[in-house]
């Protein structure tokens, strides 16, 4: 006998993500899920953002890594609340890990929560966490063809930060071709070319973030 099911395999995760979102909304926290490959500059962007906003905005960070507390230690130096999740080999954060991490943060004292996902352009795009914005970083040395190779990541992201633009003179990365590729499949996406090293372009990113926080 055949039984129709038609149920999403990730339902259990999505339900927990929904609960996370409710908890964040109740406390007035705006959460951003930051995804990228390893070394694209997620932690650098978070640190630059903290440096520019910490006097105006109460920020907290959840760090996801397979192992180590290197990133959490860097964030910890800024005296921002930080929770490290070690996934122990898992390639992405899932909603349940975030649910546990939220228990370790005082949500009522937070305006903006960065969730730094595990460095990986594949799996994090499939697992909802409950964040308000899906965001990704691509760094210029990775190449402008990445939207074609990892389409799910580029369609799931609402904001894309293109980092390491200070390296453009040394690379074949074509910013125009990259933007065309991304917008070709995700027309509403915001793209911010920046350099976390020199600070170029960061003002636009910060302005967008401040506007998003006001509208939350």
């Amino acid at each position, binding site marked *: *006998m*055949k*039984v*129709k*099911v*038609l*149920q*999403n*395999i*990730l*339902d*259990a*995760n999505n339900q927990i993500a929904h609960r996370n979102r409710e908890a964040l909304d109740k406390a007035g926290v705006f959460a951003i899920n930051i995804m990228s490959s390893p070394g694209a500059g997620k932690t650098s962007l978070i640190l630059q953002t903290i440096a520019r906003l910490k006097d105006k905005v109460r920020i907290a960070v959840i760090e996801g890594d397979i192992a180590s507390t290197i990133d959490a230690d860097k964030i910890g130096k800024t005296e921002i609340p930080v929770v490290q999740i070690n996934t122990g080999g*898992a*390639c*992405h954060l*899932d909603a349940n890990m975030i649910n546990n991490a939220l228990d370790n943060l005082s949500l009522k004292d937070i305006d903006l929560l960065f969730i730094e996902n595990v460095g990986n352009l*594949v*799996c994090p795009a*499939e*697992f909802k966490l409950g964040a308000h914005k899906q965001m990704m970083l691509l760094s210029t040395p990775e190449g402008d*063809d990445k939207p*074609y190779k990892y*389409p*799910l990541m580029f*369609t799931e992201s609402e904001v894309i930060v293109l980092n390491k633009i200070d390296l453009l003179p040394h690379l074949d990365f074509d910013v125009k071709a990259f933007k*065309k*590729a991304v*917008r*070709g*499949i995700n*027309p509403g996406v915001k793209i911010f070319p920046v350099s976390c090293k020199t600070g170029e372009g960061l003002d636009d990113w910060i302005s967008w973030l401040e506007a998003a926080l006001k509208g939350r």
Partner: protein
Amino acid sequence: MHELSVTQGMLDIALEKAKEARASRITAINLVIGEMSSIIDDCVQFYFDFLSKDSIASGAKLTFTRIPMQVRCRSCGFSFQPDKTAWSCPQCGKWDAQVVAGQEFYVESIEVE
């Protein structure tokens, strides 16, 4: 590489539906997976054999229906499978596509006794 947790989720869904149908055995689980997902069929089967061995789903056959990525041009409405390095519409030439298929990830049905 997250097939283990995904396979557990899929098995849980199948067991729950089998229980609702008062079935004593699950003989097949039919899955629909879009090609944009990063799931590897052999890997799911491997974990499934391990996870299901003490359940009524033990020995069930998994079938995978793969759905190719398909996009629709927002400008002229033409649906097409995108080329690997260009997402422009073959009909009108615009770059304004919306993904309409390829992200599926669900249990379509189970076969039970």
